[in-house]
């Protein structure tokens, strides 16, 4: 209590004394509940001792996820930048994309129709060799 004059100090002392009195008059029921709360808190502190390495472990998944996200971003960023650049002009890039699409579609069709490229190549070779021997 730091009053600037004697009167203030006296006033503050009186307030403090009354507040102390009000603390002393807190009833037993409330004190019992506060005691129970304190015991629960102390038990909680004893039950969950924290160690620095354990705290660090709890942060590992988060740190790992962040690191992985950064890594993926770093890997994808240049590719995305490359794709966004026009190759010999925009038209060429579009045509190349279409070629890739058509090739992919034809391969898919071959698979759907059960076309076995190896078998047909072998059969053609057999036919060619038969023609050669008979001719």
């Amino acid at each position, binding site marked *: *209590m730091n*009053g600037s004059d004697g009167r*203030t100090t006296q*006033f*503050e002392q*009186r*307030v*403090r004394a*009354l*507040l*102390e*009195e*009000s*603390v*002393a*008059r*807190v*009833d*037993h029921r*409330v*004190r019992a*509940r*506060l*005691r129970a*709360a*304190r*015991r*629960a*808190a*102390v038990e*909680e*502190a*004893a039950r*969950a*001792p*924290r160690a620095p390495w354990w705290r660090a472990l709890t942060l590992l998944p988060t740190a790992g996820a962040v690191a992985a996200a950064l890594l993926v971003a770093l890997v994808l960023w240049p590719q995305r930048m490359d794709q966004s650049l026009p190759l010999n002009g925009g038209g060429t890039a579009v045509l190349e994309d279409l070629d890739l699409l058509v090739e992919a579609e034809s391969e898919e069709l071959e698979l759907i129709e059960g076309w076995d490229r190896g078998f047909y190549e072998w059969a053609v070779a057999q036919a060619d060799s038969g023609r050669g021997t008979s001719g």
Partner: protein
Amino acid sequence: MPDSRTYDRSRALDRFLAEIEVRAFRIAQIALRNEDDALDVVQDAMLRLARAYADRPPEEWKSLFYRILENRIRDVQRRRSVRSRFMAWLPGRQNDPEDEPDDPIADAPSEEPSVVQRLQLDEAIGVLEGALRELPRRQQQAFLLRALEGLDVAETARAMGCSEGSVKTHYFRAVQSLRARLGDTWP
């Protein structure tokens, strides 16, 4: 079985909480005007301190505890504010029972030196509490932490999360307001 370090820390924490629990309850009770709410926030502050800060140096506990307590008091006040705004919409609702003054019979003192003394003290404490409740929250907080809990300016600043200059200002204004309010009854 707990090791000796854990045991020592538990004992220190127990001593610390035993030392402050009743004062903390009074501070919360003056702020919240409700015994059950005050008990709840003190209990919650104790648990949070034990869970999160028991490893910190004991000399930091007081500031940390009162910071936690203040946050919890503010949470309760905010919830009440929202609830009272909501309840105001309901028809036939006049007052929230929690807003009514404390029942003097329920707050009966544990020790009774004499009937006259008790009545005088009751009256003086009641007037003081009324004046304290009228203070702005930060002034009330600064005043109670300094006058009731006995924190110094630096500890109060840490507990309130503000500068030492702000603490001095809040405290000075609180004293001025209390003097203006209680000056007639306290010559």
